[in-house]
């Protein structure tokens, strides 16, 4: 046996060497790969359409849509009437699209703002705007609206309020808040994430103080800020 030991060791070595070569060769021959795929999570995804109402007498109740145009709005740069694709009720008042924005964030907070300019203000006149929000985030988000810092001293002659829009079956009801100064307006609500219940409409109304005595051809209002955030109670919804 001792006599054959060197030969056995030599053969074993050759076998091990062959195994090493074959493993390396098989690796070179039989594998291919690609790497580096990345997918980022977006947490908040909402759209905000902002409309201004046509209200001939500025009484705070927009003009009604003509027969056949119910559920439609006027495009901002045309005379065409477009059907509200994301509406959850049939709009009966005349609105014109003035802006559309996105609220997107990979974190827990997203925000946007609307810059409103009034060019035909007069005492007691009410200017009506509508925000239409669709929450595509897949879960509930909180919405908080307020005005930014007031810089134009004339803005002190104005008041504003939020009019909530609620729908029960086919009945649409509008509930106005009290008139308040810009800095005091705050509207907080929650928008669900369910595909069938992820929309919110509300009106923003701005009124020049009835006791004011002058007209204003141009007034830059403070920005109307909309902030969305996710909180603990969003889990599981």
């Amino acid at each position: 046996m001792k006599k054959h030991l060197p030969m056995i060791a030599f053969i074993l070595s050759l076998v091990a060497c062959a195994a090493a070569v074959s493993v390396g060769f098989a690796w070179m021959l039989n594998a291919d790969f690609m790497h580096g795929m990345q997918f980022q999570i977006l947490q908040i995804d909402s759209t905000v359409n902002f409309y201004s109402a046509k209200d001939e007498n500025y009484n705070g109740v927009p003009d009604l849509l003509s027969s056949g145009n119910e559920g439609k709005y006027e495009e901002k740069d045309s005379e065409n009437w477009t059907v509200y694709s994301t509406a959850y009720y049939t709009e009966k008042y005349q609105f014109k699209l003035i802006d559309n924005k996105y609220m997107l964030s990979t974190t827990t907070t997203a925000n946007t703002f609307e810059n409103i300019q009034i060019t035909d203000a007069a005492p007691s006149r009410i200017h009506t705007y509508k925000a239409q929000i669709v929450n595509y985030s897949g879960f509930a988000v909180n919405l908080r609206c307020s005005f930014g810092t007031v810089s134009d001293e004339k803005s002190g002659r104005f008041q504003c309020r939020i009019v909530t829009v609620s729908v029960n079956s086919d009945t649409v009801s509008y509930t106005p808040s009290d008139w308040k100064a810009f800095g005091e307006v705050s509207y907080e609500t929650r928008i669900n994430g369910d595909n069938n219940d992820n929309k919110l409409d509300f009106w923003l109304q701005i009124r020049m103080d009835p006791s004011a005595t002058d007209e204003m051809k141009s007034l830059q209002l403070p920005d109307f800020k909309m902030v969305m955030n996710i909180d603990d109670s969003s889990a599981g919804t």
Partner: protein
Amino acid sequence: MEKLTRAKLKIIRAALGLFLASGVAVLSVVYAWFLSGNKNNTSPIEIGTQGDRSMQFSPTVIAVRNYLTGAKLTNTYVRDEKLDLKLASSDFTQDGGGQTQKPEEKEGEDFLFREMLPGESVDITFGVYLQTNELVGQEYEIRLCDFGMGENNYFTLQGDTVNTTTKYSVAGAYQWGVLRGETAGMAWMNDYLAEPYQLPTAITIYSGTWTEENVGADKAVWVTLRIQENFSNYYAFLGKSGAVFTNYLSNKILSVGRILLIGK
């Protein structure tokens, strides 16, 4: 007699040397494999063609992002001279009546789908084929490996017991499936409800046997992998653990370090 013993010793030494050398060779191959398997995921998709590989991925990968609004983003990735996959073209269509912000895709960008939402999916289509008929009859697998655990790829969770925190991959917010026709049976990348919670090292997404029909790039077997974001597993996991919820998905990215094509 003494000469004979010396000769035997020389042979034994040579044999031992060969044995050690082969051991080092095996270890180096395995180590190289290990190293390449742990490359980070920040680089773009690469399709490697080192050596004379008989099986390989197609040089083009098409990825279609399906938005909830009905919009679609179709990205085509091709190899550059470094064999990395870079964005070559991008097409965006807005359908379904919703509003989707058009993404700002730039040619040459890495493989990254930004800002995906629950329910959104990306369908990644690539081909696999043989260069020669040498491996006909042999089985092969396509695996997802090397799930990233970089800073943006995991969250820590505090359990019922104070001071007990565990690190989890964000992969539990994603499912995968291989499309059959228009539907896909989806499976979790990382099922938080199945212990152990830790990510598997690899997931086999597709397997097959090479045939004569698969020889040549124009006869590739085309596979469409769907990656879908879904938070239900994540929410159920939080509920079961009794953990305090804060928003753990903030600023998170799922990264699949490698798609591997290999013989069984």
